[in-house]
């Protein structure tokens, strides 16, 4: 059974600092997705990572995928308050045709 773990669950950081959110998964998959959720709102797609070594960047966020290590990272560079949200990773399970979500990382960027 595919399991997805994110860490940390909570992250409070100062503006201008860098940090990384980790997403580990338990069985083989080559499709990984990152989403953002603002309080009281739905999920918004950030990145789709489709192969080993894939790297995507958008503004201060950069996501990467290492399928051999079964690990994806979401790196935040020079955080700003607007990045405060909950971030989810999701892994596609080809055996079950499902997306398995991590529990999310609640990020708070302090001014």
């Amino acid at each position, binding site marked *: 059974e595919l399991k997805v773990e994110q860490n940390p669950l909570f992250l409070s950081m100062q503006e201008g600092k860098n940090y990384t959110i980790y997403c580990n998964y338990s069985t083989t998959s080559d*499709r990984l*997705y990152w*989403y953002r959720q603002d309080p009281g*709102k*739905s*999920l*918004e*797609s950030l990145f*789709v990572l489709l192969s080993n070594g894939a790297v995507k960047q958008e503004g201060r966020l950069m996501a990467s995928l290492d399928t051999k290590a079964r690990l994806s990272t979401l790196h935040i560079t020079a955080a700003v308050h607007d990045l405060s949200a909950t971030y*989810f990773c*999701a892994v*596609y399970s*080809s055996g079950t*045709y*499902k*997306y398995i*979500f*991590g*529990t*999310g990382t609640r990020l708070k960027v302090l001014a």
Partner: protein
Amino acid sequence: DVKVTQSSRYLVKRTGEKVFLECVQDMDHENMFWYRQDPGLGLRLIYFSYDVKMKEKGDIPEGYSVSREKKERFSLILESASTNQTSMYLCASSPAQGGFLGEQYFGPGTRLTVT
């Protein structure tokens, strides 16, 4: 832009009532999903559908049923609502891409309270 809409943003129902949550997508996606989101538990899959009239159980189907009579519409039914079904319900759709599922597009969510 893909648009996924849900019939209600907020809903309050009484225990034992039959509850219908509707979801409509306008991008001709093959796949549709219903999740519930609870604090500390992330998103849990209730049911999904990969074609009209097709449905598959997710991880927590008990107490729920679904209907997909048209490609664009996927309904979640709570046969007899209970207080432990108080939650945020999220609908999503995705295209089928060569045997894999593409990225999901989520609706705004329905916050259901069962009293």
